[in-house]
């Protein structure tokens, strides 16, 4: 199989494309376009002994719907390739000197690492403002003094 991977991140956000992220996986001898063969931010790994199950692992999203919280940002992929762990990492840095780099499937697997991310805790609901203690009701006034009878 042939893996088109990003060798640099395209942004700083957690859900931007990350360095080592697999963009797409295609069959051997795929008809890549000129832009795909030459983009300096990408590289193509040719891994002829890669199984579909390994490819699926690299393309797996970070989480499934049943595990997702709505209105929460997640990384794009569950796994990425750590370029520094590949056999010849220099081929993935700097100027793109080869349109494709051949890497055995086992080496790709060795370089595959899980993305670790903990979504931020939801903003806590502020504690309610305490209700002020009510002012005590004044004690009942005494009975009014009797008005003296007129002389």
């Amino acid at each position: 199989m042939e893996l088109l991977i990003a060798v640099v991140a395209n942004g700083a956000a957690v859900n931007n494309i990350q360095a080592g992220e697999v963009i797409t996986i295609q069959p051997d001898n795929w008809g890549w376009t000129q832009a795909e063969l030459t983009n300096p931010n990408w590289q193509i790994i040719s891994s002829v002994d890669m199984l579909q199950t390994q490819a699926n692992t690299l393309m797996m999203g970070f989480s499934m719907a049943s595990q997702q919280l709505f209105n929460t940002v997640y990384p794009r992929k569950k796994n990425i390739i750590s370029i520094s762990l590949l056999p010849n990492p220099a081929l993935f840095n700097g100027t793109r000197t080869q349109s494709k780099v051949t890497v055995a499937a086992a080496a790709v697997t060795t370089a595959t690492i899980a993305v670790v991310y903990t979504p931020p805790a939801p903003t806590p609901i502020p504690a309610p403002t305490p209700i002020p203690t009510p002012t005590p009701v004044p004690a009942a006034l005494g009975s009014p003094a009797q008005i003296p009878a007129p002389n």
Partner: protein
Amino acid sequence: MGTVTYTVGTSSRNYSTLAAAYAAVPSNLVLAGNNYVLQCYNDSEFVSSSQLLNISGNVTSSSATLTINCASGQSFGTNASAETNALSYNASNGVGFRCTGSYVLGVFANSVNYVTLSGLQLANNGTGNEETAIYNNSSSLTNFLIDGCILETGTGSNGYSVLTTLSGLVRNTLIVQRNTSGVGVFTAYPILLRLANCTIVAPSDRTSSNSGLTGSAGGATITNCAIFGFASSANNSTFFSGSNNASDQTIGFGSANQASQTYSATFNVTTNSGSDFKLISGSSCINNGTTDTTDIPAAIDIVGTSRPQGSAWCISAWEFMSSGPTPITAGVGAYTWAGVTANLALSIAANVGAYSWAGKTANVTQLINAGVGSYTWAGVTANLANSIDATIGAYTWAGVTAVVGNSLTINAGIGAYQWSGVTTVCWMGLQPLTGTNFANTVKGGVWN
């Protein structure tokens, strides 16, 4: 602001996959100062066992947008035969994206503002859970537009939904749930969601156990949508509002609805095999929609047909054209019909549908209209004094049984009729009419 267009197809285009074309788009479109268009070509179907596109992390604005559409003539909606092709996912008709793996959360996923998906076909044919065509878990997206698309999910083990979106506008889109346990559209915080002129269906032979619309909070507006084939139109009527919707079930929300309609009398083919969700003549969706140029300013349907074609907009993604886009006219002469040669003395036009006439089935694409005159059909001569239209049902005419399979109606105007020299008798409900003269216009009668 300019517009940068990347073409997507085979190696002759800019990019061979949509994911690569998207990866070439800068993360900050505002900073780049451009709108970006990923323009797809139907060089071949885009197939993968995993998600085909995840749009995330981009900074956009009203003048720095991302659009994914098709080049001219490359979409099912701009196909040369768009008006007559079956309305269902078919990559032969236009650009199609299909996922075959299990647990694929959306053929496409989107969490970015100012994104438009137009004229695309997306199918998730996975065999496991979480099957969706498009997934968006954010209720705060602005200007997320799904326009004139076909979205489908397959018959996997456990369906989820065809479309999961908490926000956005979905218009002129066909949504087909083929899984018996899945829903059509799922939305959790639907405050910003609007559905306009969408067809949301489960095939009639899949016996769905779920709802066309499912939500967990209120706010979604549903207008001119047709929801058929599900166990219920919505899981909770209080979550939805709108008007002029149609269903084969009751509709507990909105107004001016066409509820409890007959599924098979609404669309051309409702079964899982050979699905075709174009409206057919006689459907309650025809001319019962409301004008909605707020959501659909161009006033068109899923294949670009102008709305309305009749007295009002049709409900559903399809706008029904009674006369058809390219009328067929048959002049005087000999024609072969289902293997039988007919000598036709006058012109006819035939409308959409499959018809059996004198035991022979023929597929007709236009309304049959027979004018006054003499006709020979399959060896039987008919003398027709007035025009007729023929509709669904079995008819005996001059001793020959004819079955008309489409939902038209026999309309016999006032006057004398003879068919092959045999006097006709027509019943109308419990008021039989006999003789050769009709006192009133007869509709839905039986001839013998």
